[in-house]
């Protein structure tokens, strides 16, 4: 009998009306790189934030400006604050980047599927992130590290544009200093004082230490980076059934009603954003969608 493959972990709504934003107050702001910032938020109307799973996203609403989807980048075990990391590139995120402590904004969520961290127990975990793609994967790292003994090797491969664009630098250094983690960071180009690797994140895969026959990979970054990363992972011997990717589309309602984020027969907001690669692979190279 055929075994049913695990999809990305599905999660149910935690709020009664998922279209109503809840008030959050800015606790802290931090610039992570020249164009990327993190907001630490606390709920106004309750003590705890809704329980979320690694890989899920919220719709963040700047009143009078607009609403955008942003992955949650904090620790799922922490219920007191919500952390979002994003780039200041559009109308909403530029205004968001100027928010100050005690400013208010609206949050709906959490929405979407999660990284199948639980399914990976007993396996080598390969986490591949490109650019700001590290933000949605950070909660998965926290989850894995909280139960480190349940996993085989844990390998984080991270690629950024330049050394100045490396996200969560202190945390990466801390993870790299741990004896039970393999952390490799590479940049596309560097000046003389950078001591790490230079080249594409895909080039780290060939020399990463893991057993492809007993490994699960979670990949997040620009879609072209994910395409080539999955190719390299498969070359190493990991099946597409054990590779998970997080897709990004124009999400509006976040509950699979409006159709803005539709890819083929899937709604990225509801069926994703985390998908088993073998499920979405045929869709990723279709120009028409």
């Amino acid at each position: 009998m055929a075994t049913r493959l695990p999809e990305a972990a599905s999660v149910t709504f935690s709020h009664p009306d998922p279209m109503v934003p809840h008030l959050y107050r800015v606790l802290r702001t931090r610039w992570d790189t020249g164009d990327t910032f993190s907001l630490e938020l606390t709920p106004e109307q309750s003590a705890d934030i809704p329980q979320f799973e690694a890989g899920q996203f919220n719709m963040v609403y700047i009143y009078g400006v607009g609403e955008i989807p942003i992955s949650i980048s904090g620790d799922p075990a922490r219920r007191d604050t919500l952390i979002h990391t994003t780039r200041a590139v559009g109308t909403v995120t530029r205004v968001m980047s100027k928010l100050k402590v005690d400013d208010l904004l609206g949050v709906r969520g959490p929405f979407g599927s999660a990284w199948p961290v639980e399914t990976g127990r007993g396996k080598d975990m390969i986490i591949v992130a490109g650019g700001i793609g590290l933000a949605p994967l950070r909660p998965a790292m926290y989850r894995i590290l909280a139960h480190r003994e349940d996993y085989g090797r844990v390998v984080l491969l991270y690629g950024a544009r330049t050394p100045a664009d490396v996200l969560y630098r202190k945390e990466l250094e801390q993870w790299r200093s741990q004896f039970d983690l393999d952390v490799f960071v590479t940049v596309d180009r560097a000046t003389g004082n950078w001591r790490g690797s230079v080249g594409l994140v895909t080039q780290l895969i060939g020399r990463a230490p893991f057993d492809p026959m007993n490994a699960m990979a979670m990949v997040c970054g620009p879609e072209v980076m994910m395409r080539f990363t999955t190719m390299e992972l498969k070359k190493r011997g990991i099946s597409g059934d054990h590779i998970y990717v997080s897709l990004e589309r124009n999400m509006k309602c976040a509950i699979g009603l409006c159709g803005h984020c539709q890819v083929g027969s899937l709604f990225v907001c509801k069926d994703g954003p985390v998908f088993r690669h073998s499920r979405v692979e045929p869709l990723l190279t279709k120009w028409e969608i």
Partner: protein
Amino acid sequence: MKTLESIVAQHPFFNGLAQPYLTLITGCASNVVIKPGELLFREGEEATQFFTIRTGILKLGVLVPGQGEIVFQTIHEGEIVGWSWMFPPYRWHFTGRAATELRVLAFDARCLLQKCEADSGFGYEFMKRFSRIMMERIQATRLQLIDMYQTRG
């Protein structure tokens, strides 16, 4: 004690190479160790060798006035570097500097070219291996050119 031929045979670039060819190649090889920060080769100089990395990291870069040396790739253990010796004008296009202590095997270009010319089977095998590396590097360069992490509003 390890022989030079056994060291050559252990490098992934030569995986599966027939014994007579390994012996031919080893005849052109020598061991080189350089310290961190030292140059393995310099842009514009005559390219008379290629290298397989045994241990350590090599930075490939180019000098940009006002910005210093811009590193666009690092070459690691198990990889190879250098094909300027194969085509005119036989000069290094970039600079190779040791990022860490570097142990490499250096292969003499003239010696290899003569052996490739004399034995077309050997030459074909050798060029196939180099072509694969070239293709991988070109593909990686194309992806770097896309600048996929660039901020787009």
